[in-house]
């Protein structure tokens, strides 16, 4: 029972007063960030990374803080979905379908309690899954040489647009933009300057945190400037926040199925939490909707996608931790955090820093329990957060982002760069170009080139080494299928987004 000993060690690491305190703060911030329309897990975590870093937190506590924020945001997204029919983030979209009708029938409290429970079940099962499966994937990862890693990175880019991607040309363009930005600076292995145009600020390359905060947070502020903070929610009243035992029993199956589907969707590269909750809802509807009550406030239609989106948040951690290749926007941001802390995910992480990995997994269990306590009895507090108007919130987001970036380097050049990325991010979002491949390109660009370089050095310049092993061939085939399939299947699988909310939503 290796896993149990490891977990016990993990709890040893996580159960200090400082770490518990950080988990508590993270859960609180995360739920608030998730609940606020327009702020989701990826831009929430993006704003907080530079702060966690400049505060000088060591690796494990920083990781605990930010993953608590991540899990918290997945919980919080449902609050505004249910109460005001505006999803706090994209994965919470499916929760509006039956959650909002329940609230309109005067069962808002029941809907919140039920969805909180479903979130708990989903993330709890998924965290167990992480503990069980991440070490297994590490065994597979040990088979990877440089050529296989190069193929794996390509696979990640090819599938990142996701099954729901609207335009693969734009996903590819975004990936190339990100990789191109990563090339800026001094080439690590040959020492030559590339694309620096003689600017000394560019010698060390562009800090990915600057790009992430600009693309996610500042572009969000600009979107709000465009809409002038329209659609501000008005007061919401809550009744008792409990859920009858009979309803819970009726929803048990829905939660279990939702968790399973969400978890698998989370592990798959590119699928992400949005697809997890979408498939969980669609399947539950097919199984349980005998009386055509789905979409009219059926509790099962709320429990399934909520369990699904939280389970996929857990599942998405597996490829990120064991292979170093994130499958979704938020895990890409979490990868950025690990790299900032000088931790390289992958098989070596499990060997060299078991305390980080298992401490993190233990922290996820703890965060889950804290979140359950916060989100069921105390949800009334978070409902108040919805009253914060964007005209106060958005300036705060912009200024806190600037504080984090300035704190990193003390350089106003980085601030200007952040604003530049914000403008670019705004234009690209308007044009429907996904931002996550850009981030991933900036993060992984140099590693991708290094692996290609190592592979070619091994083979003495023979490019056929890239498809020399069965594993590499399998990865390349998956990459091709993953890139081409959405063009054919996309229209059937894409969740129907109302056009007006689609651009404003954070991708998971």
């Amino acid at each position: 029972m290796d896993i149990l000993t490891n977990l016990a060690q993990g709890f040893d690491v996580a159960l200090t007063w400082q770490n518990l305190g950080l988990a508590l703060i993270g859960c609180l911030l995360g739920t608030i960030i998730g609940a606020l329309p327009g702020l989701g897990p990826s831009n929430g975590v993006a704003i907080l990374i530079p702060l966690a870093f400049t505060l000088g937190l060591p690796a494990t506590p920083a990781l605990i803080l930010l993953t608590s924020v991540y899990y918290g945001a997945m919980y919080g997204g449902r609050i505004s979905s249910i109460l005001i029919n505006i999803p706090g983030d994209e994965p919470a979209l499916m929760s509006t379908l039956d959650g909002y009708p329940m609230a309109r029938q005067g069962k808002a409290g029941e809907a919140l309690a039920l969805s909180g429970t479903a979130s708990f079940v989903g993330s709890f099962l998924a965290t167990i899954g992480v503990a069980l499966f991440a070490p297994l994937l590490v065994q597979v990862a040990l088979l990877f040489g440089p050529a296989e890693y190069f193929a794996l990175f390509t696979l990640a880019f090819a599938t990142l647009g996701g099954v729901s991607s609207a335009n693969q040309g734009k996903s590819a363009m975004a990936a190339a933009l990100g990789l191109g930005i990563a090339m800026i600076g001094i080439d690590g292995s040959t020492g030559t300057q590339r694309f620096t145009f003689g600017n000394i600020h560019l010698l060390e390359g562009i800090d990915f945190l600057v790009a992430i905060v600009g693309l996610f947070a500042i572009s969000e502020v600009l979107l709000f400037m465009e809409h002038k903070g329209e659609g501000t929610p008005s007061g919401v009243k809550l009744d008792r926040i409990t859920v009858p035992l009979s309803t819970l029993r009726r929803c048990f199956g829905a939660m279990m199925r939702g968790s399973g589907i969400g978890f698998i969707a989370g592990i798959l590269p590119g699928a992400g939490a949005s697809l997890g909750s979408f498939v969980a809802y669609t399947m539950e509807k097919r199984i349980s909707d005998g009386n055509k009550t789905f979409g009219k406030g059926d509790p099962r239609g709320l429990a399934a996608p909520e369990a699904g989106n939280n389970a996929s948040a857990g599942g998405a951690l597996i490829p990120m931790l064991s292979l170093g290749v994130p499958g979704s926007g938020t895990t890409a941001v979490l990868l950025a955090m690990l790299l900032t802390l000088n931790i390289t995910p992958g098989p070596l992480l499990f060997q060299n820093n078991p305390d980080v990995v298992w401490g993190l997994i233990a922290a996820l269990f703890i965060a889950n329990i804290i979140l359950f306590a916060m989100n069921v009895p105390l949800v009334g507090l978070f409902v108040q957060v919805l009253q914060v108007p964007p005209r106060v919130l958005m300036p705060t987001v912009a200024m806190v982002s600037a504080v984090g970036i300035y704190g990193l380097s003390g350089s106003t050049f980085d601030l200007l760069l952040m604003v530049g990325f914000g403008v670019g991010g705004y234009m690209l979002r308007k044009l429907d170009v996904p931002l996550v491949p850009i981030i991933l390109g900036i993060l992984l660009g140099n590693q991708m080139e290094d692996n290609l370089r190592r592979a070619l050095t091994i083979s003495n310049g023979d490019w056929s080494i890239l498809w020399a092993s069965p594993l590499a061939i399998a990865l390349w085939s998956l990459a091709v299928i993953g890139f081409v399939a959405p063009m054919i299947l996309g229209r059937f699988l894409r969740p129907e987004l109302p056009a007006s909310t689609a651009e404003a939503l954070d991708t998971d």
Partner: protein
Amino acid sequence: MSSDRLLGAIGLILGVAFIWSATQIETGFIVDPLGPRTFPVIVGGVLALASLFILLRPDPKPDWPIASRWMEIVAAVAVLIGYSLFLEEVGFVVATAIAAALLSWRLGSRLHWAVVSGIGISLGIYAIFHLVLGLSLAKGPLGF
């Protein structure tokens, strides 16, 4: 010309320029089979091809903001650029209060409420991040 055709055209030019620029990279003494040029050339190629695809098969036009809203965005960007340039000149508290107040005003606060929010946001961030968490923020001539 639709927005996507413009995007594709810009991307195509960028991709070609990137490839050209990559071929100008000086190679050093250390030589390995890949060299510093090849990967950027591949990346530029992907960028150019993807842009060509967008150019030839554009999506429907996105709903761009009307002119007055464009002005709002330009104004917000100007505020943020000004903030970046003057932050170290005037110090964190003053710069942040002014920038936050301006943003809040443009987001629809009444003028006096915008001033109150600006000062509140600035002092709040200063208190939490500097006084409590000990983060170093830009010091102006007044010492804060």
